[in-house]
């Protein structure tokens, strides 16, 4: 499960500054094809900054960040899908149109193939029957799943998730986590999930990267070699949870 010869996502010596503040310093990370990596860290350690760099939203940084061997700054953000902390949906557009925003630029959203693809995605995230609904009519969990479908519409090499479940209540959160695992297993998408929830990270990921310090840097990497499907209360997971928490310095 650890990084293979040709990682899909490679970060080398990443250093990111906002004016006088250094947010990330010397971050190295390699994510293999199909791997599920969670990045945890206390708030202010630059977790979200890391995702913004990976998604190509930050144009200026030092070091090398590549997806499929291409610099994330070159040629737009072609190969990543991003699920933000908030759903960030277009509230005047229906679910179908919101998911279609994620389609690659060379796909005509009006074509039958594109419609099928969007329909499949809506089904994948368990929202069949809601294609014509507007975001205002959806619950928080459903809206976040529309955002997930939009992220998958690109058929991205890497799907980035920025604390996507942090605004949800406990039960919905557990459902959404299992749902994400289903989608990941079905589609084999490479996933990088940023979270501050250690339990979530250990339950979901193959590997947990602990960011710490200010500026943020990789403090520790914890492999989660536990068979799937996993039990949340699995003693091995609980032990790993402690290991990650210790690495966080808590």
């Amino acid at each position, binding site marked *: 499960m650890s990084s293979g010869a040709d990682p899909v996502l490679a970060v080398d010596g990443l250093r990111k500054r906002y004016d006088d503040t250094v947010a990330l310093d010397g971050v190295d990370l390699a994510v293999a094809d199909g791997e599920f990596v969670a990045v945890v860290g206390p708030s202010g350690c630059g977790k979200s900054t890391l995702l913004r760099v990976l998604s*190509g*939203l930050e144009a200026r940084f030092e070091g090398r960040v590549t997806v499929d061997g291409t610099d994330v700054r070159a040629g737009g*953000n072609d190969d990543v899908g991003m699920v933000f902390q*908030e759903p960030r949906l*277009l509230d*005047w557009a229906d679910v179908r149109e919101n998911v279609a*925003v994620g389609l690659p*630029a060379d796909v005509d959203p009006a074509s039958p193939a594109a419609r099928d693809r969007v329909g499949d995605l809506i089904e994948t995230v368990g929202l069949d029957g809601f294609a014509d609904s507007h975001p205002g009519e959806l619950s928080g969990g459903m809206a976040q799943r529309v955002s997930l479908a939009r992220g998958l519409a690109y058929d991205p090499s890497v799907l980035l998730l920025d604390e996507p479940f942090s605004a949800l209540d406990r039960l919905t959160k557990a459902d959404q986590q299992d749902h994400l695992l289903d989608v990941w297993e079905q589609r084999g998408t490479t996933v990088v999930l940023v979270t501050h929830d250690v339990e979530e990270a250990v339950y979901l990921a193959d590997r947990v990267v602990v960011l710490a310090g200010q500026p943020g840097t990789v403090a520790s990497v914890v492999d989660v070699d536990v068979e799937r499907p996993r039990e949340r209360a699995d003693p091995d997971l609980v032990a790993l949870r402690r290991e990650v928490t210790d690495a966080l310095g808590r």
Partner: protein
Amino acid sequence: MAADTRRESDVSRESDAGRGSTGGGSASEAASHSLGPVPLPAASRFRPLLGLLVPAALVVGWHLVVATGTIAAYQLPTPVRVAETLYGMGASGELWGHVAVTLRRVALGAGLGIAVGTVFGTATGLSRTASDLLDPLLQSLKNIPSLAWVPLFLLWFGIGETAKVLLIAVGAFFPVYLNLSTGIAAVDEELLEVAAVYDLGRVESLRRVVFPAALPSLLVGIRGGVGLAWMFVVAAELIAASQGVGFLLSDGRTLARPDIIVASILLFAFLGNCSDVAVKEVRDRVVGR
């Protein structure tokens, strides 16, 4: 200035109306619940009619003060006299000519103002440079009162239709420009990031994200613009016109016919209201979704 105050008053009027109707709805609901099976007449259905009560009382009061001679009839005609005058002008066909001319001016002027306002509002909303170049100038021009433009426009364009339509366009331009420009500039940064992450490209992100997000602002601007178009048409027609409702107004003064003056004022109120309701209806359809 004028645009802003007008908009504010519109907003407060709307919210008042909203509160009134919802309050009425829940009150009648509660009443029918507590009274069990005895059906009360749906009072809320007649609620809009309440708004007619005060105007009706005013008309009666108006009639009384003139009929009793408290106000001389040569200063203020009775309501009946005004109605007769309107009917007479309508029957002879004279009225429709004036109304048609005024409507045409307002439609052309407002259309032109809205179109130009949309172009400038889009440019300054999208481009920081365009905004830095144009916005200070336009912000100061908007404070010039409508009447102040009239002599200049007459000098430039003569007393024909061009001067009037352009004057009205100036009025309609500012609310559209101001609202659209701020509306576009205020489009949620988070949505723009979504457009960036999914590589929508400049044109697509405008079409699918920026313009739909700014559409409500544009419609608010159009509503204000149409309102100002009616103010500017009066300015244009009072001073240099041989036709139109504004001309009727000044003609009434020349002929010492207060009935014509009051009839023209009422016509403006009626036409202005109709166009406002129409624009508001369009806005509610589009934004209400």
